[in-house]
């Protein structure tokens, strides 16, 4: 599933023996000279790389092929440049409003893949990889929700999930190897972030929040038991973190099919966890309506759409009615009549328009990529 990840694992295995022949990049800009020349010549400059009269190119992703040698130092960016690149992509590019969000997503996704590729080829140590991957995970979670109702030609949720999982598994494996290498990563990052607090430009810097990622790993994979297997085996101090406990509680409620509880607990989530859960919400709503069409199945009785909207977090009773009609259930005025034979399980998922997270939580996009879990 994640070729980088496997490759990365192999690298760790061989680390001891091959420490000496590690490649370190020497390219000190976001895009290597060769690529700048080529892309200028071939007119391959992306609209998001044009800032007025100025052009700011970022190295694009290209598949490794048998005839091309990618392990060339002057084509690879060292860790500080990669950090700067990630920061630039997430803090500056995502603020562009002159192009549709899906174009921004495609562009940033491609450039982030190139960053991961550079990190892989250079075999960066786990602590550096973790710092690069953490903001990427935020990016995939945030845009996964923001673009969730776009047609397939503009945004593919399956691919997004693939990249998200790739980053998450890589990140978690980094945290694990760090944890075994020298105690706990939280001590390290906690220490670093406390230094940052004193720095004057603490804002607009990418951060590394392990609790958040562990939490997102559970909430982004609510259909899967494996993140929970991981959770129950985590060390006690991380496991007891209220944020993670909340995620676990939600996952267990979901396991029991308890949609009322899932939605009630969802009100306590932090912005990105909220994105993760609400990307899953349409699936949850569909299952809940299927359950209800059996449980409330009756030719005479109805359930008010208000109650449905309240239970399943539809924004308006109107949205609840629309969803019910979408799945073939009968709507009578303000009420819904459930009948088990009416429910159509083969129609596409009904995805309501996502809410703007920035408005809901009163955050800027920079905040979303940099907020941290209180210790």
């Amino acid at each position: 599933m994640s070729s980088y990840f496997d490759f990365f694992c192999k690298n760790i295995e061989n680390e001891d023996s091959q420490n000496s022949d590690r490649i370190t990049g020497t390219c000190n800009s976001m895009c290597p000279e060769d690529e700048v020349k080529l892309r200028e010549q071939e007119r391959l400059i992306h609209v998001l790389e044009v800032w007025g009269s100025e052009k700011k190119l970022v190295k694009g992703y290209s598949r490794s092929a048998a005839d091309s040698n990618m392990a060339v130092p002057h084509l690879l960016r060292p860790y500080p440049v990669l950090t700067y690149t990630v920061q630039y992509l997430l803090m500056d590019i995502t603020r562009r409003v002159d192009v549709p969000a899906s174009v921004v997503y495609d562009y940033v996704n491609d450039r982030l893949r190139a960053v991961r590729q550079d990190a892989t080829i250079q075999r960066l140590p786990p602590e550096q990889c973790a710092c690069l991957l953490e903001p990427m995970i935020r990016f995939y979670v945030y845009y996964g929700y923001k673009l969730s109702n776009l047609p397939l030609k503009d945004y593919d949720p399956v691919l997004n999930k693939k990249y998200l999982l790739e980053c998450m598994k890589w990140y978690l494996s980094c945290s694990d190897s760090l944890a075994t290498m020298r105690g706990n990563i939280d001590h390290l990052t906690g220490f670093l972030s406390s230094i940052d607090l004193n720095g004057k430009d603490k804002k607009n810097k990418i951060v590394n929040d392990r609790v958040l990622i562990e939490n997102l790993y559970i909430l982004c994979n609510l259909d899967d038991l494996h993140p929970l297997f991981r959770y129950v085996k985590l060390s006690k101090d991380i496991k007891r973190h209220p944020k993670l406990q909340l995620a676990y509680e939600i996952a267990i409620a979901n396991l029991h099919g308890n949609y009322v509880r899932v939605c009630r607990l969802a009100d306590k989530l932090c912005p990105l966890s909220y994105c993760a859960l609400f990307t899953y919400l349409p699936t949850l709503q569909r299952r809940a309506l299927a359950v209800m069409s059996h449980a409330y199945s009756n030719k005479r009785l109805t359930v008010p759409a208000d109650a449905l909207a309240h239970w399943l977090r539809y924004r308006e009773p109107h949205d609840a009615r629309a969803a019910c009609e979408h799945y073939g259930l009968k709507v009578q005025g303000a009420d819904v009549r459930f009948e088990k034979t009416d429910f159509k399980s083969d129609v596409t998922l009904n995805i309501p328009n996502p809410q703007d997270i920035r408005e809901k939580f009163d955050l800027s996009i920079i905040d979303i990529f940099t907020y941290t879990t209180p210790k």
Partner: protein
Amino acid sequence: MSSTGSLNQYIQYVERMYRTSQGHQLARLLSLRDEHVANRNLRSSDIATLVEGNCLAPLDEIIISHLLCVKALCMKDFMEAFEYQSACVACVVRLLQAQKESNWCLPLMYTVCLDLRLIAYRAEACAQTNGKILEKAAESLLACFRVCAADNRTTEADTKRLGMLTLVNQLLKVYFKINKLHLCKPLIRAIDSSTVKKEFPLAQQITYKYFVGRKAMFDSDYRTADEFLSFSFVRCHRRSIKNKRLILTYLVPVKMLLGFMPTKHLLQKYELMQFWDLVLAVKNGDLRGIDQVMEKYESFFISAGIYLIVEKLKIYAYRNLFRKVYVAENNHQIDIASFQAALQLMGHDDVDADETQCIVANLIYDGKIKGYISYQHKKVVVSKQNAFPSLSSLY
């Protein structure tokens, strides 16, 4: 062979077994669990020069690495022992490759592979390398596996494919130990598609089904898990109490999920009384009791990987609790409020009417309650006949 023989006698003996194709005897002579390991004559300081040229071509290397491994083990240097045993396995792989159309050497392969895994465990325990040594061991085992799996032109009686299952079992043990279950899939596929599936020894089949059953359980495929684990449990030798207990550790929760509760006698016999408290709690619909059991035996449930299955059993507790309410009310129309009160009484303090409805709705959807909910009247109307079908009838 007596344990007092000289090095030369030992070499001659190994050679004779090799020339007369006595696989089991040969395996015993190269085992680390045989009495010849205690023989001081075999621990000379200069094994390599003494053996070299003194012995048939592929055997000399095997004997050298074997004896060096014995020496390292006597010095309690498990890392070095592991290296030598890996070399020994590699030599055996070459030996097997060279022997076309015969499989009498398989016992030797089983022995060196098992020894490799056991040493890897010891080395891992000493060096704490986060599974790296076990992964290396798995690589050596895979090399053997490839030789066996590729031997598909020999007749069924002589094919090395018969050795596949024993190796797969060794590999499964390693993968479960280092928690890399995704690596099991290709192995399972290889065995499933094997033409000699029925010919594998029963003991190996039992081990195999035990691991595949656990894997199915881990992937939430409980019916498959039940099938495989039941096979293992029923066929496992009656005196292998320890193994039967291991199988039951997984079979009991899987069976419970499928609606079959174990008897107290069974749990007592196999010292699995941790489950008895759980059975009682589930039967009584005692949600608080389940939480207490989960807390009390948390480390047991987590280390066995069944913590989340126990969590799933709460659904059965709901069903049993609601059935009690139904019996007590003696009416086929029951207030949601009664169910809610029962939930609160059993430790779900924060449950409200909406959530109670949701829990009932799920039970109706799963067929555990026959009936429907009336939102307007805040009542559950259950079927007049068999309102709570028995759990085991649902699967």
